[in-house]
């Protein structure tokens, strides 16, 4: 893969058909004084690896643009550097851009910015890593006319001081909104965000998690080409960690959060927004599906709003933080077995198989029977039911605080 080889034209002719009736809910969101066409934007990765990729993302309906992380020099990217994990996960060791800073400044930013302007959407650049490097890189990138700068703490170490230093350094050299991209291996992201808040304008949560290791057992070799074969986990398996991190940050700070990690459908957007995010970023699913993912996911999310009688994303933003941000617990005053709505049951037998307490007995196509005395209320059958036929009545939506 040479930096200057002409890329093969990328055919994006197949798109998941969008619903025929467009969603009614308002899709635009305002963050950092910028108007995004939808809350769904790219997260840094090969999906935004150069100007041409950025232009495709803009043409395919992303809410805004965000470019791959640049640094003083091109990354010495080991190969292989990406491997699929499970159905929708990924391990990567891509580091940052494999293109030179000069190439970005001479060409790629111009192409990307032109596409953003043509689509009328904001453009965020991503820079790394140490304070010294940022002082060199950031002013040049800012001079291209980008709307905001994201910096990644991924390779800055795990001390609060080092991270605050880089934020300060960035603030001193540019006059743009600054977004700190947090990595989960740092540790307590809520605490970190609180310490960083005076020095930045927003947060992106989270980068990929790791390091992790997967071994090709037929050859006793790593699947990735990095030292020890270590890589970073992203995609669907990352989502619960990402949602937790967004929540953790959002409950500690007032500044906006961009939720990133395992987003692949409209419901994921809603989940991140409820946890306190204002925008969401997608990397892995964009690699697997192509640039049409951003619009598809945004439209799915807007349809969710329609179905739930909400007019805009602001109506769900932070809903979970407000109710549970102080450590409230869901009301479970009375311990009760799940209730089965036999009108909804499809007779799939899943509840019977997953029950570890021999409380549920299920036969194909029939409604299962539950022996309440045996039920431990572990809850697994409720979440495993594909038809939503099982539910807990005592958790009918009140927290301990609300009940008091």
């Amino acid at each position, binding site marked *: 893969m040479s930096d200057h080889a002409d890329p093969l034209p990328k055919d994006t002719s197949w798109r998941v058909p*969008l619903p025929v009736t467009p969603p009614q809910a308002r899709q635009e969101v305002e963050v950092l004084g910028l108007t995004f066409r939808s809350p769904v934007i790219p997260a840094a990765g090969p999906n935004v690896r150069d100007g041409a990729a950025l232009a495709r993302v803009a043409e395919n309906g992303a809410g805004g643009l965000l470019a791959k992380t640049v640094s003083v020099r091109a990354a010495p990217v080991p190969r292989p550097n990406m491997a699929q994990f499970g159905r929708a996960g990924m391990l990567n060791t891509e580091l940052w851009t494999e293109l030179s800073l000069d190439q970005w400044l001479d060409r790629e930013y111009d192409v990307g910015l032109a596409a953003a302007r043509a689509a009328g959407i904001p453009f965020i650049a991503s820079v790394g890593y140490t304070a010294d490097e940022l002082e060199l890189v950031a002013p040049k990138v800012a001079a291209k006319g980008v709307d905001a700068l994201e910096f990644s703490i991924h390779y800055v170490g795990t001390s609060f001081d080092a991270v605050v230093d880089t934020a300060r350094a960035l603030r001193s050299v540019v006059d743009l909104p600054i977004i700190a991209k947090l990595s989960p291996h740092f540790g307590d992201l809520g605490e970190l965000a609180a310490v960083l808040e005076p020095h930045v304008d927003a947060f992106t949560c989270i980068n990929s998690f790791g390091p992790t290791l997967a071994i090709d057992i037929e050859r006793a070799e790593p699947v990735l080409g990095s030292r020890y074969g270590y890589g970073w986990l992203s995609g669907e398996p990352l989502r619960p960690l990402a949602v937790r991190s967004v929540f953790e940050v959002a409950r500690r700070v007032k500044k906006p959060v961009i939720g990133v990690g395992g987003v692949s*459908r409209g419901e994921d957007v809603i989940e991140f927004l409820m946890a306190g995010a204002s925008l969401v970023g997608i990397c892995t699913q964009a690699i697997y599906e192509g640039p049409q993912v951003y619009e598809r996911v945004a439209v799915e999310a807007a349809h969710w709003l329609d179905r739930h009688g909400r007019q805009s994303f602001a109506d769900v933003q932070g809903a979970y933080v407000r109710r549970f941000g102080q450590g409230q617990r869901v009301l479970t005053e009375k311990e009760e077995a799940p209730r089965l709505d036999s009108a*909804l049951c*499809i007779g*799939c037998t899943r509840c019977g198989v997953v029950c570890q307490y021999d409380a549920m007995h299920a036969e194909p*196509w029939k409604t299962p029977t539950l022996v309440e005395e045996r039920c431990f209320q572990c809850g697994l059958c409720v979440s495993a039911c*594909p038809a939503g036929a099982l539910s807990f009545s005592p958790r009918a939506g009140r927290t301990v605080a609300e009940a008091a």
Partner: protein
Amino acid sequence: MSLALRLARQQPAYRDPRARAKDFDEIDSGFTFEQARVEAERCVQCSKPACAIEGCPLGNAIPRWIDHVVQGRLRQAAWVLATTAPMPELCGKLCPHERLCESRCVLGQASKPVAIGALEAFVGRVAEERGWFAPAPSRMPSGLPVRFAGAADRTDQSDPTDRSDRRGHPERIRGASGHVAIIGSGPAGLAAADRLLALGHAVTMFERAPVAGGVPSYGIPSFKYAKSRVERLVERVRRKGAAIFCGIEVGRDVTVRELRKDFDAVLLAIGAPRGRLLDLPGCGLEGIYSATGFLVNGNVPAECIDEADRREIRRGRRCVVIGGGDTSADCVRTAVRLGFEEVRCLYRRSLEEITGRLADRGYAQEEGVVYQFLTSPTRFEGSGRVERVVCERMALGEPDGSGRARPVPIPGSEYVLEADAVVLSLGYDVDRKLLESARCQLGPDGLVVDDNLMTSRRGVFAAGDVVRGADLIVHAARDGRDAAMAIDRFLREG
């Protein structure tokens, strides 16, 4: 080896042929949930899925909804499906998938293609049973123009509102809502109604038969697709807001021109109902039926059949069905279920050229039907009622206009088959007389339409078999869906 190749293609459980040949119930119960999940796991999630791009006339986002099935999110799977598919349960069960989506599944190169049809049928069935496709009914009353006030009594539609009422209705979803008349309630008409209602228009449907649903109600036997499922589909569209008036024949009770005056647009979705006939000596004998006449009277309770179409099917021991298409498989299997002990299907070409689905022919053979290839009738004999079919053997010659080898009779090869009933299943044509009276331009297959599915008469659209000639449910559904969008544009932009 990847998971997709390790897993075997799942098969729904089929009933024993001897047991199922005695009744008109469906022959399989479809996938169980676990089967569906395993089958869905086999999908390799192609990034540019040929099944969807090239294989599915509706452009269903097949890998997307299959992925939801893998994750056990059936509701989401149903929603994704519903964005493009007006009637997934019907298509899942009755499309010739092996020629459409499944023929394009890349897995077919290494093992068997993903059972997309059975998966769609599973998701469609679960969704229809739970009412997941039925949104809150549209709040727009759809009704009859005043001149039909009397007709409402003949139908189960309780409160037909007249048009002036609707015009002033405050709760219309979009400014441009119009009122559309749909003639014919088969797949094309129902698909169009579904979309038009979603787009905020009022819909009134006119159906000649006493019961709505088109060929799936009257032609397709219930052992292939239960009538209760067709009813459920019609009911969904009705609940969404369509007023459906059965027992009204356009051309007899009202003309297209009158409807065009009363409604903002008209959609002709009247199918291709004219069974082709054979002009052979003796073809007027009693006991010789058209495929539709045989299927309708064999499958449908008499009270649901228009009086003019009711016929007693003569029972006996031997039944001969002539023709090799999909319909003939339905006829032979209906004959088996009516108690005929010896059922034969005559086809004038060879197994290679036969158009009917392989699967259906397999079921028929399991149920005892005998296929006789390269055989054609020359005349029917009997005193008053048919007793014998005189046949001759054929050989295959040069390809004809359809590209298939032309069958030519072998001189002196005549022989006689005993028959108590004969069914002519030779294909269908559109009702030219009616269409000519509607003064819309006709082509060789059916109505001529432009890119917007509009006929030569402004504001009169057409969809389904009436345009294509006898075709498939999925094509009718696609036409209906596209016609709805075109009508929506027409009503908003003029």
